[in-house]
């Protein structure tokens, strides 16, 4: 599903260059559920943005769902985001003056789907996350957990092949976080690839595969020859970095 090779991403200001990712390789198979961990500034969100075609990289190649996306136009990348990728954010990122139905409708609108099909898909998605009865509510009328469930519905309503979740439980209590994880697992069971950034080791371990980032480089626990000692689920080498 995802094949990144030799990716380099540098953030430049007038005086400073920050290497967010360097010589970065990653391969994720279709239908996998991976969690991405690492200390703040390790490049987790940058990686997610690159995977989600929300940012560009300086070097390397990236094949998404068997399509080389390294040199696509903005329009082509938007199309891929719309058709193949669903996003879930830590702060939910619902549009405040659209009701729940219309928020879930946003990706389908950009797909040009007929109104009747959109309505069916949205109602199914809201039913899946248990919010069918709240479709006319505004985001501000929902709890944080409910808002994130709406965000999950918005992410999978179009049937994407890949869902990218950037700390989806970061603003939720443990009960609500587990609810969201249940939903993500359910979506993954249906064949959708899920990549989730999280700081919570317990949630990370619910994913069959975990990867850790440190200073823009990958430590893939599954592909290590020797087990890396963990402190509270975090590799020892990363614990000093303030994870």
């Amino acid at each position, binding site marked *: 599903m995802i094949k990144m090779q030799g990716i380099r991403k540098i953030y430049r200001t007038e005086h400073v260059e920050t290497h967010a990712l360097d010589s970065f390789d990653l391969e994720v198979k279709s239908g996998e559920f991976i969690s991405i961990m690492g200390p703040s500034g390790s490049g987790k969100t940058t990686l997610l943005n690159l995977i989600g075609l929300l940012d560009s990289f300086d070097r390397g190649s990236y094949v998404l769902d068997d399509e080389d996306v390294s040199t696509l136009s903005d329009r082509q990348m*938007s199309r891929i985001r719309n058709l193949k990728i669903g996003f879930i954010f830590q*702060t939910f990122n619902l549009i405040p003056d659209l009701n729940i139905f219309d928020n879930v409708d946003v990706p389908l609108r950009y797909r040009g789907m007929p109104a009747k099909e959109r309505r069916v898909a949205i109602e199914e998605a809201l039913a899946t996350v248990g919010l069918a009865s709240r479709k006319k509510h505004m985001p501000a009328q929902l709890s944080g957990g409910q808002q994130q469930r709406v965000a999950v519905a918005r992410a999978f309503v179009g049937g994407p092949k890949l869902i990218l979740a950037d700390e989806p439980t970061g603003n939720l209590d443990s009960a609500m976080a587990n609810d969201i994880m249940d939903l993500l697992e359910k979506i993954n069971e249906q064949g959708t690839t899920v990549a989730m950034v999280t700081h919570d080791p317990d949630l990370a371990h619910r994913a069959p595969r975990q990867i850790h980032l440190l200073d823009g480089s990958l430590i893939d626990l599954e592909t290590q020859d020797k087990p890396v000692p963990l402190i509270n689920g975090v590799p020892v080498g990363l614990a000093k970095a303030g994870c």
Partner: protein
Amino acid sequence: MFAYQLRLAFKSLRRNPVLSALMVVAIGLGIAVSTASVTIYHIYSSNPIPHKSDVLFHVEIDNWHPDRPFDSDHPERAPFQLSYRDVRALMQSQIPTYQTAAFRTELMVFPDGDEQRPFREIVRMCFSDFFLMFDVPFQYGHGWDDAADHAPEPVIVINSRTNLRLFGGANSVGRSLKIQDRYFTIIGVLAEWRPTPKHYDPTVNAFGEPEAIYMPFNFTPVFEITNYGNTWSWMSEPIDSHEEYLQSEILWIQMWVQLDDETQKQAYQDFLDAYVLEQKKQGRLSRPLNNRLLDVMATLEEREVVPDSTKSQLVVSLLFLVVCAINLIGILLGKFLSRAPEIGVRRALGASRRSVFIQHLIECEVIGVLGGSLGLALSVMVLNAINRMLSNGEQLHLDLTMVGAGLLLSLVAGLIAGIYPSWRICHVAPAVHLKMQ
């Protein structure tokens, strides 16, 4: 998608109604001023008889001072009016489809009964072809015929306002009306007719109302009528009688002919040249041969019916609209950029830059159209105020073309105001804002 983006635009405007109202008012003011100016220019420069303006020709012969042109700034131009003796000669031609000499005067009208006092009224002296060549519409009756021209027969045509004033708007054909010392039979009542500009005589108040009464030209010597308009002369002549006035070189009569094709036009041009060459032999018309046939639009242009001040006013008002639109750029930029996190989400969910650009441009155009609607309402008020200040009654109004022009201007203003802010917001990096919400 357009309907969706339109809905988003209205939603966005409702989010901050005060700011939205401010922007709409700013565009509205610009549209009001510019639409009023465009309307004035449009009316001043419009073709009053578009279906035949290219076959109606004003007749000019250069009958001015032998040593200097009539208009020193435009030496190629001839005087706009003719002398009575030249008119009498030119009216003998059989070449034109229609032809008329005409001038404006003022005569005393004596209504029947004691209810209304006698009054002076503006009268156009003309030939029967006047009504045919200028497609003058009739409410009742018709114009007079050639026989009435030649006799002349005591017949008149009155306009609808005069008919209302004297006969309460009823069909007055066949009724008599005393003018000067003679009774005339009304044979026609005009329907509403207000050519703008008044192409057949732009020498006096080109945007004023047409005359109230129309009388056969040949009553001119009978009543010893002189004109009530511009009179031009380049020489001093002793004039002690009306007959001497008619035989003088004083220029006071307009003449129009209808020539339907080039052959006819060339034949009439030859006729004019032959007449002037003949007059030269008699010691008249000493200037170089300069006989001109100007169609309606050329006549109006040469008479400079559209004042320079109107052109300047048009330019200034359009610049004012541009300034109003430019002032909105900063407001829209701030408003759009404050929405960057939402745009980041939309971009993540599949909106392309183009789609985001169009969405915001539509919002700007909605502001433009709302402002345009307000501006059109204001411009009606502005034009009504101008009409009240003009002594010759209502003449400026918004027609469908001008409403269309106002809406087009509002779209242009929306585009000017919105193109840069829309371009900026569609280029924000979505990744930067997604984490910041």
